[in-house]
């Protein structure tokens, strides 16, 4: 019986996390730009560039995950597939964010074209939102893993990504010593709202799967709440990733609190994706739980047998010669 989802591990987790963080960072500054907010406009270009680098690093993790890295271009081959759509979204987002970033380079001829920049920002927001939402749809394709079938998964991914994106922008504001700007307070408040929403959605998602889900869905929740992933879930997602940053955001808008909250939100975002990816068990085949030895033990036994046979073959060869 499968105890966890074992095919996508830390690399996929890292990709989902970095892509979500980068996409929402870019989306936040693009939205501020479109709305005409000028208080922190000196860092729009830098945030956009950081989003590009962060998402690019995530894409590299995705490439490393492939066993045939030089065939990576084939992921664009079948547009009907959700993964292929994700690849197109990722590429569009990277391209648009790159173009958007160039508007902030002073010697670039089009740096003064405000209207075009805002048009690119709108397209970038659309691509970013698509990139953030598609992992929820992608995971929902696994019909045998009912833990991912809940209707709130997409919303949960979106809210978690918003939190990490806001945290990223907050950290950049502080890095560029713009902590005095009124937008630090606004972003901190937005982060608080996003964390509250995340907490509510997380609770209701788990509750919903527990009430309506299949045996495997309920088991996945038990594994998260009481089982092997409880440290990651309670420690990483709930306490470190949501409750403490929520407390810090509510306590005050001072820089140390904001830095602490933002850093913890990022850690929480990583743990959230890790736990949600790992916990989803596949539906059990009849009798699968009776399997006397698991796949790993079978592999070890097979390797031992092969080695014994090779030893015997060598012995026979020596006897014959």
């Amino acid at each position, binding site marked *: 019986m499968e105890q966890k989802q074992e095919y996508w591990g830390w690399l996929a987790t890292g990709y989902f996390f970095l892509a979500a963080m980068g996409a929402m960072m870019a989306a936040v500054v693009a939205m501020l730009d479109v709305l005409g907010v000028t208080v922190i406009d000196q860092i729009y270009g830098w945030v956009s560039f950081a989003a590009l680098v962060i998402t690019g690093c995530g894409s590299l993790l995705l490439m490393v995950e*492939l*066993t045939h890295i030089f065939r990576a271009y084939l992921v664009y081959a079948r547009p*009907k*597939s*959700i*993964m292929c759509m994700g690849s197109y979204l990722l590429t569009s987002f990277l391209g648009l964010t790159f173009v958007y970033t160039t508007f902030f380079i002073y010697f670039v001829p089009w740096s003064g074209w405000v209207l075009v920049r805002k048009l690119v920002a709108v397209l970038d927001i659309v691509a970013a939102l698509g990139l953030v939402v598609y992992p929820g749809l992608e995971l929902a394709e696994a019909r045998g893993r009912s833990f991912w079938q809940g209707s709130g998964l997409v919303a949960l991914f979106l809210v978690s990504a918003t939190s990490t994106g806001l945290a990223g922008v907050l950290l950049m504001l502080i890095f560029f010593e713009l902590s005095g700007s009124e937008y630090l307070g606004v972003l901190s408040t937005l982060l608080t709202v996003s964390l509250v929403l995340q907490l509510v959605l997380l609770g209701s998602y788990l509750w919903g799967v527990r009430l309506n889900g299949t045996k495997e869905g309920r088991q996945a929740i038990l594994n998260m709440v009481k089982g092997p992933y409880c440290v990651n879930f309670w420690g990483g997602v709930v306490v470190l990733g949501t409750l403490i940053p929520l407390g810090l955001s509510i306590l005050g808008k001072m820089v140390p609190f904001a830095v602490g909250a933002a850093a913890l939100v990022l850690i929480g975002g990583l743990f959230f994706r890790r736990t949600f990816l790992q916990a989803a068990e596949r*539906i059990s085949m009849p009798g699968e739980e009776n399997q006397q030895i698991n796949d790993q033990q079978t592999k070890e036994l097979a390797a031992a047998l092969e080695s014994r046979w090779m030893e015997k073959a060598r012995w026979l060869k020596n006897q014959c010669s």
Partner: protein
Amino acid sequence: MRWGMLIDLKKCVGCHACTVACQNENHLPLAMKYCKVYKVGPEGEYPNLTSYNIPIACMHCQEAPCVEGCPSGASHHREDGTVSINPKKCVGCRFCLLVCPYGVRHMNKETGAVEKCTLCVERLETGEVTRCTETCQLKARHVGDLDDPDSELVRIIHKENARPLYEHLGTKPSIYYIMP
């Protein structure tokens, strides 16, 4: 034309001969099994107990999540309805392993491509039956054309009210089971 299979669980004794024959036919390492046989039960309460064996391999679903999800088109439907993998197109993203509800796909670490039961289509094309069907001493397996209403396979499926495994998942498998 749509190849399918029927497995009579009333006849299967769980000898694992199909597993070994499949490994032999496909030159698989010992640890890799395209076809696994699970022992179910004993279930129920005395004296109403039941126990049976169930061979599980690729279900060659008509609405296969692996085919729908494959970004490179490596997993595809052949004209004969079977699900096949083109190893030259497989990028090794493992998404098909993730979405297959039956857990019957394997990553071959040597080739870096995903593999699974092919329903021995090369044998079927030459008029032979699949290797597991040929090997089964209890004649628990039948292979044939699911689109032909006069075929023996379809006749037995109707007569015995055979059903695919986990029909509710909506993948429309081509492997049917006669439950004990």
